[in-house]
């Protein structure tokens, strides 16, 4: 009883409340807001430009909001913009990107999760060596491996096809994804694995019935990582596909940087936004998981 009274009498508790508008705080928030404007500016400019008509763009100010909102540039970018002789817009590139993305995700994550599982619970002689090579491989410039892969794909008859590009994404996604899954599976208690072994479960049974259901969060992280990575790829798309199978980023670049015809900046910006839409939606919808994915990517090697 006496104790509590002395405690309550000993003055206010907890940290001293800070003034919200101290000079340091104004400086801090001022800086952050200014920097935020720099980061937001390109997105804003793209949106307003894509909603203006060409006459308004020629006369006016890139930062000004559109006086007359028009969705015509978006329609044109999606369905009519020309690359070379094809004038069916970005919709074709979008379709190609989707057809590249889905099998690439399934294959790369499937392979990498099995790798990670084997590397953490079924180590064999040399497994760590292969893993080390894989991680070092993540740092080798892609340019060094581009041409040998052209030869491999040609031998397999996959050069220029979507299947070939899927294979390339699986190969180059493997180091980081394998690392991700290996670290995750290694954190699953060994006892669980041993118990399953005693009960007679084999390699695949443990993988599908124990590991897979436990690893769902890391699968989501891997999917986020791969969707943005594969969607944003330009280099592999431009080298391993042909115009009919170009992914969206390559087609976008061809539309905007084509030398023929009058430049239609509003259509270009609508096309750019359309291409950026998928990763942006993933980013804003996934929040913390995206950060977790890139943090895992950051510690590669």
């Amino acid at each position: 009883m006496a104790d509590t009274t002395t405690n309550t009498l000993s003055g206010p508790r907890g940290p001293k409340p800070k003034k919200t508008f101290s000079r340091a705080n104004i400086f801090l928030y001022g800086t952050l807001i200014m920097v935020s404007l720099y980061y937001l500016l390109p997105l804003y400019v793209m949106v307003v430009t894509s909603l203006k008509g060409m006459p308004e763009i020629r006369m006016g100010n890139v930062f000004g909001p559109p006086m007359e909102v028009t969705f015509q540039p978006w329609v044109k970018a999606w369905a009519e913009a020309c690359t070379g002789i094809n004038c069916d817009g970005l919709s074709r590139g979008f379709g190609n990107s989707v057809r590249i993305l889905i099998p690439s995700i399934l294959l790369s994550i499937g392979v990498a999760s099995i790798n990670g599982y084997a590397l953490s619970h079924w180590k064999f002689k040399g497994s760590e060596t292969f893993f080390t090579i894989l991680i070092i491989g993540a740092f080798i410039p892609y340019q060094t491996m581009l041409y040998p892969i052209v030869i491999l794909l040609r031998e397999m008859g996959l050069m220029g096809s979507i299947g070939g590009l899927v294979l390339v994404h699986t190969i180059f996604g493997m180091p980081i994804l394998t690392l991700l899954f290996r670290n995750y599976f290694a954190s699953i208690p060994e006892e669980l694995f041993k118990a399953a072994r005693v009960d007679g479960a084999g390699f695949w049974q443990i993988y599908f019935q124990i590991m897979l259901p436990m690893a769902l969060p890391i699968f989501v992280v891997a999917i986020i990582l791969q969707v943005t990575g594969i969607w944003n790829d330009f280099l592999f798309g431009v080298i391993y596909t042909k115009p009919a199978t170009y992914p969206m980023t390559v087609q976008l670049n061809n539309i905007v940087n084509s030398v023929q015809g009058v430049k239609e900046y509003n259509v270009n910006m609508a096309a750019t936004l359309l291409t950026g839409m998928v990763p942006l939606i993933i980013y804003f919808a996934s929040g913390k998981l995206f950060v977790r994915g890139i943090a895992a990517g950051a510690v590669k090697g």
Partner: protein
Amino acid sequence: MTVASDPPEHAPKRPSRLFKNLMAKIASIPMILTALVVFVGGTAWTVVYSFTGSRMLPKTKWVGFDQYERLWGSDRWIISIKNLGIYGSCAMILTLVIGFSLAACLDRKIRFESAFRTIFLYPFALSFVVTGLAWQWILNPEFGLQSVVRGWGWESFVFNPINDPDTVIFGLLIAGLWQGTGLIMCIMLAGLRGIDEDIWKAARVDGIGTVKTYVVVIIPMMRPVFITSLVLIASGIIKLYDLVVAQTGGGPGLSSEVPAKYVIEFMFRAQNLGQGFAASTMMLCSVVIILIPWAYLEFGGRKNG
């Protein structure tokens, strides 16, 4: 009733080592093939063929170091290397400074922290092609930033880093920083969060100011985070390709060429494979030069697992 037995694969009396863990080995075939055929084999193949006179198709006509002599005698390659040097050193320093400063600001227990973080990081989700095209438009001399400032009354304002050969690399830098600083900020923020609250208390007791605490105490403590960031930034700089293609196309003239673009132009456009192989081998060398000191710092002493 406790489970006490070892998994059978640890039992010493198995018939053959080769068949031990057979299923794991079969399941690892894609990984083994990727590591050996693509990463080791592909890299070795390119290095070996950089000593040949391959043009349209790879062939084993040995020419010694001819390709390298021609490479270092080529203006285009020298320009590419210079550009990468300027871009690289600026990007390295500015990304670290901006990334750390933003992380430090966000770590001051501010409100709306996650909103700010979301804004700083969103460009990282975008493709370099999207980034390049967006900045190409903003920096457009006729309609973009330059014309807007002139419209405000400053008629002689010049800011045209897309069409001016001397400043084009800074146009790329603005776009590159816009896209890349968010990632470094995130890594730095994670590093700052890992620092013990007691360090701050001790600094306050000793009467050291906030900025000084960061410079004298916190930054030295975050050495591993800085090294990771450096490696990430450096490997990103060497890969610089998409941004240049989208934003400037290497122009005006050759003034914004970079090595990665040189390699691809010679391999796939100019039908001069040997030159492309030699240039990509040089890129590999530069990565090795960066990677070895880092691996030594990171794993020095203990073995890399």
